[in-house]
């Protein structure tokens, strides 16, 4: 193959039809309250890990729902499981449980 001095860029778009929604389906079953998220970001604002690292719990669960698993997989272990996010969620989402379920799914995979 010829090298022209550049590579063909890969799309940044979420290709929903092609993505693997296995984790999303697993979490939806294990943590039904996760469906009630409205993306307010209260959890991320208060997050112990999120103030020091890239860990953004709101964004992670949204990426998970779209099947963009590669983008957050490495982030999950940064959660300190302190549970502060649970206390702020206006929709009663079991945020901590959601992270645990994701870790569990990734481990089983």
């Amino acid at each position, binding site marked *: *193959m010829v090298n*022209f*001095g*550049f590579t*063909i*860029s890969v799309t940044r778009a979420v290709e929903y039809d092609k993505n693997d929604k296995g984790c999303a389906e697993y979490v939806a079953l294990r943590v039904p309250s996760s469906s009630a998220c409205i993306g307010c970001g209260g959890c991320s604002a208060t997050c112990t890990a999120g103030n020091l690292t890239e860990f953004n719990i709101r964004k992670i669960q949204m990426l998970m729902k779209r099947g963009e698993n590669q983008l957050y997989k490495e982030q999950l272990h940064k959660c300190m499981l302190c549970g502060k996010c649970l206390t702020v969620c206006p929709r009663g989402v079991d945020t901590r449980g959601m992270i645990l379920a994701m870790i569990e799914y990734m481990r089983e995979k």
Partner: protein
Amino acid sequence: MDMVTTNNRQWEKYQKEIADDRYYYARSCIRQTFFPGSEWAFIDILRNKLGKDIFDDPKHTTCTGIGYHSDVVPFQTTMTVVARHFALMTEAGYANITPSCITSFGIYTEILHAWEEHPELLERVREDLYKATKREFDVPKNLAHTSDVIYKFRNQIAMQMVHPLVDVHTGKPLRVVDHIGCHYAKMFPSKGVGGAEFPAVLSGMVDAWGGECIDYPERRHCCGFGFRNYLVQANRGYSVANSMKKLESMEPYEPDFIVTNCPGCGMFLDKWQYTISEMSGKTYGKNGYGIPVLTYEEMAGLVLGYNPWDLGLQMHQVAVEPLLDKMGIDYDPEKKYCDADGKLISLPKCPTFLKQ
């Protein structure tokens, strides 16, 4: 005014005034290199097939579009250069300007719009141009892209048609992908035939000449030319990715050819097929030939029975022969790389994957 029909719908909002004679022609900077027969074909069709008066002025220059869109030419300079074009037009006794380049069309449209909204800019430009060149100008009465002009006369051209856009072996209409340059109507939808979302300027020609236009998901997507993007080698990856996105999206429809009205799009959609094939081994279209890309003048020329080599089709990266065969057009393969006197110029190298 012409009625616009796309996908059996009337986009009455986007009828556009297109002058019907006496054009001042503004050539493109790059088209004569990439599609060397297209501008000649346009003038020839207008003069000899439609009997129109068109003035091809050797004094006219770039509109600075490439520099303007690459952030190296300021707007004030661009306006003054364009004002000089208008001065040349005025001096030649014309009032209708028709640029061959989509970006020139976009630049002219943007400038006329700016002058309308801010008359003080026009006064300043008049002053600048006069100081620099002692020239004065009238604002054009009508601005139409050359594809608008061909669109306007598509039915007259249809009456002189020699080779309709039909597969002579099956009798079925050729399947055509139309690609409209972004600067044709995305900035000023009302200035394009059919508007920005369903422009009819090329599909109208295809319809009139017996072909069938394909609407595919990435039809409205930019080809990726983008000036500053392809100019810098390191950025070309996302330039080519856009063309690739379009090619991937149109491939399942098995188009017989692509027709474009923009110098950059035509060049990119054609030449990037080579680049993509050399970088990844992937070719589009049947049997590894790629999807031929025509300019609308080349398409009109073929329809009117012009010799494909006079139209400059040998300069295309993707071989046009499969298309010529489908249309039942006679051509001499021996003459493909000969000059006007019939002498062989030289033979180009063959790509690794893209069949020639």
